[in-house]
């Protein structure tokens, strides 16, 4: 049935829509990892919104407007990238992808863009031209699908273009139709990883070279492979140690690494949640939507500056250096050198209560309620995001009457309210994990602005991390910096981000090696990324154990191998 449906889909002009729907349906077609493998399974990952945008920009340039809406991602193990291998595309999202695909295709072939983006000209613009269509669709298809199209795929796309061109007497309309169908193809919308046996190690499996190129490219650039990387995949050099290192170093030197680093940390720090948070304007009139955008950017600038320079990851929690805009400076309550300018370097003075990324608006405002702070949310985020620890959800019947009542004359500060709340035995356990950390950040209100009193009562910012006492958020950053769980967690996060799935217990050895190397590399995230992407283990996958469903349908790799492409 599925095979029949698959074949039918491919015969339709809008076949890609249909094929996508097929791929997005719950499928038994897949690979189940062997339990004893040292690597996890190959994954099928939905292309993220920024990855989609970056792909279109890479291929067609920034002047192509994308529009449309992307469905929110699914976060798993603290990362959307891990969630991409568990996410599907709903019918409503498919509709959005279809709208975007048609819009993009129409712009690519319109008179303003066609001469620049289409490398050949038809004999006549009112008729079909298979040679030109084949050239364009072959070139673009390789970049969209992140591998060359098979002969059959290319022939199919040319046929789609010709059919549409004939019916409309417009070569470019035909081309747009075919391009739109590729833009909604599962081969584009999903990053499908293909496993092949590893010749050097019996019983071991690894990603095929194109899947390898994709994993490498999305890890470092959050973008699909460029032509040079695809060429390295095609000629097999990417499968050699030297070839892989050559490509990795090229990509690490590229300015595009910034986008990759930003994407990694935006995901890890859950900055996508800024799209949905709001603040009570009566309580925090200074918090406007612009603040959310700039707060996220501020943190990513602070981080990428350090990471790209090979800085010590742990310093991010104590650094006094950051960037501010005039708007953000108003939240921080400081003057800025050029009020008419954009981003400007800023350094907190010695002894300032702010130091490190945890005292930035992006953390304290994101992990707060609309009308009040939340030491619990902040403490929980700190443990989960930066220490990879799990804090259980509160029980369903928990009574929030103390913590919600911010005007209670008896409990005037969050500390007092939480003490009353956490007195309940059911609550005490978890609050011991979260509150000593979160309470040390109480001098930052829900908008991220600094304060010293709450309800006319001086705020006590004493806290502790694993029994180590400190006072204030800056000191907490120092305590965090000295916690060995901090570097271990970032190693785990980066690796999970790269492979796009939960790490298995059998990968512990690899993780431990990376963690030890990270220490030896003076906690340079950039070096960590290089170690990961140049290690063959990063591309190893579990052997397929069960293949069901479309078992008779040969893989693209097999097709390519058979056709000699």
């Amino acid at each position, binding site marked *: 049935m599925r095979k029949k449906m698959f074949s039918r889909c491919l015969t339709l002009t809008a076949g890609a829509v249909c094929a996508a729907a097929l791929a997005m349906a719950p499928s038994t077609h897949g690979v189940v990892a062997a339990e004893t493998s040292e690597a996890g399974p190959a994954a099928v990952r939905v292309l993220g919104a920024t990855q989609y945008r970056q792909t279109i920009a890479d291929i067609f340039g920034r002047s192509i407007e994308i529009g449309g809406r992307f469905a929110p991602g699914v976060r798993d193990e603290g990362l959307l990238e891990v969630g991409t291998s568990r996410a599907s595309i709903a019918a409503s999202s498919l509709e959005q992808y279809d709208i975007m695909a048609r819009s993009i295709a129409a712009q690519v072939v319109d008179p303003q863009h066609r001469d620049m983006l289409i490398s050949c000209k038809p004999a006549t613009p009112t008729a079909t031209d298979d040679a030109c269509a084949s050239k364009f669709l072959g070139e673009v298809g390789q970049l969209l699908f992140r591998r060359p199209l098979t002969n059959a795929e290319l022939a199919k796309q040319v046929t789609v273009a010709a059919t549409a061109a004939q019916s409309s007497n417009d070569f470019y309309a035909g081309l747009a139709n075919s391009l739109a169908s590729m833009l909604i193809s599962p081969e584009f919308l999903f990053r499908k990883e293909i496993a092949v046996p590893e010749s050097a190690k019996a019983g071991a499996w690894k990603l095929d070279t194109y899947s390898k190129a994709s994993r490498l490219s999305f890890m470092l650039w959050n973008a699909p492979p460029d032509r040079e990387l695809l060429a390295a995949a095609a000629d097999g050099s990417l499968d050699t140690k030297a070839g892989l290192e050559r490509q990795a170093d090229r990509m690490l030197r590229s300015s595009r690494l910034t986008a990759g680093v930003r994407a990694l940390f935006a995901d890890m720090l859950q900055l996508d949640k800024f799209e949905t948070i709001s603040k009570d304007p009566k309580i925090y009139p*200074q918090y406007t939507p612009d603040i959310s955008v700039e707060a996220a950017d501020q943190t990513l600038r602070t981080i990428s500056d350090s990471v790209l320079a090979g800085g010590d990851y742990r310093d991010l929690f104590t650094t006094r250096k950051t960037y501010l805009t005039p708007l953000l400076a108003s939240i921080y309550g400081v003057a800025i050198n050029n009020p008419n300018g954009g981003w400007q370097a800023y350094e907190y003075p010695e002894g300032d209560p702010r130091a490190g990324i945890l005292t930035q608006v992006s953390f304290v405002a994101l992990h707060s309620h609309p009308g009040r702070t939340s030491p619990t949310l902040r403490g929980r985020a700190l443990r989960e995001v930066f220490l990879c620890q799990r804090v259980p959800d509160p029980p369903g019947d928990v009574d929030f009457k103390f913590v919600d009542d911010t005007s209670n004359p008896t409990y005037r500060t969050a500390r007092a309210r939480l003490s009353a709340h956490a007195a309940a035995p059911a609550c005490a356990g978890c609050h011991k994990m979260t509150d000593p950390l979160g309470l040390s950040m109480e001098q930052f209100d829900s908008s991220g602005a600094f304060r010293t009193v709450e309800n006319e009562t001086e705020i006590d910012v004493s806290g502790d991390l694993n029994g180590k006492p400190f006072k204030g958020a800056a000191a907490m950053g120092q305590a965090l910096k000295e916690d060995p769980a901090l570097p271990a967690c970032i190693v785990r996060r980066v690796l999970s981000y790269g492979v796009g799935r939960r790490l298995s217990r059998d990968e512990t050895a690899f993780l431990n090696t990376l963690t030890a190397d990270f220490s030896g590399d003076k906690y340079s995230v950039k070096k960590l990324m290089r170690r990961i992407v140049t290690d063959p283990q990063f591309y190893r996958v579990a052997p397929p154990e069960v293949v069901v469903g479309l078992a008779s349908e040969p893989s693209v790799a097999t097709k390519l191998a058979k056709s000699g492409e």
Partner: protein
Amino acid sequence: MVRVPFGLSAGSIRTLLRRTAAATFSLAIFASAAAHAETKTFAVSWFHNATYYGGPNDCPDGLNEKAIDFYKRELLQSGKTQKEIDEVFADFPGNGTLKRPWQSYVVVRGNGKDNVYAHPDTLPDTGHLKLIGSKLAYGFNLDGKDGPEDFEEADTHEKGVDNEVYRVTGCIRTYVGGPPPYRPTWPSQNWEILRDQAPAWLISITTEKGSNEVTLKIDRALERVTRDATSEVRANMTFRVDPDPRSHNVIHGKIENGVIVTDPTDIRIVADVRLNPDFRFSKARLRLQMTPEGNLKGILGGYEYWYPIYTVLAIRAQAFEFPTSINLPMLYHGLKKHADADPDPATGQNRQISTAYVVEAVPAFIAPGPVASK
């Protein structure tokens, strides 16, 4: 208990200041014997005519007419027939198109040929402008005298307060305020537009070490104010000072009981070429104090040239007159008649009129370092 605009008493402010975070700064700034010199800058968030509202008895003759009423009356007085008037005003003010037959009538309603806004004397003072009749107003005793017509200050109860602009405009329905926190409609609307178009105004207050002397600087900024989530002026923004000396004012004052009062001086602030090109005050004084939120609030009083007050509105002619119901020729006559300072040596006609403005400001910064080149 002394009342201040918008419902806060001086006593309650002092109490609140002691209880809030703002107190730390405000007491340092406003204490009569500050331990250290300190400068704090504010960006003006509100600046509009200080229109005291005491209730309906403020205007014993009632409010001034609506535009349609004074248009019809004045056209009838000018010799137009009732039939003619009824015809042109059959659809007033009209459906938004330029087909407004009444417009060509009201523009020349003085002598039938000249633009009445450019030549307001063509429409004689009919004595229809209704004036404020109450004794309370915001402002200062600018001339040092306490005449029978003078006001008593609504907050400080100072006698001999001069505010003839309030007397003239206070019963025009779009100038009438309301009980705090309501603001007078047209003046606040004007400021709403102005503050988005004109560069910000900055007030820097420096306390003198160990004394109750203060120095205020009023400057224009190079940047405009921006709005916060409640559409008010965003606090804590940084501004550069406009080097144009026309808008640079240095004023001396004193702090008494947490209230800054400045000495009489001339103040000039360049605003916006289209709305209010220039604010020029002579013998002007400021009375300012902190709000519990750490903002600045008070009154600026002084003499202002009356003719520019008229022309700023008159250039907008009937398009401004009919929606605001401000009878511009009558405003001209009222301001001219009640002008109370600076007599013209040749004619004896006073050229300036006493006035008062509400001043409110939020904390701001002045750019500390060199301005980066664009």
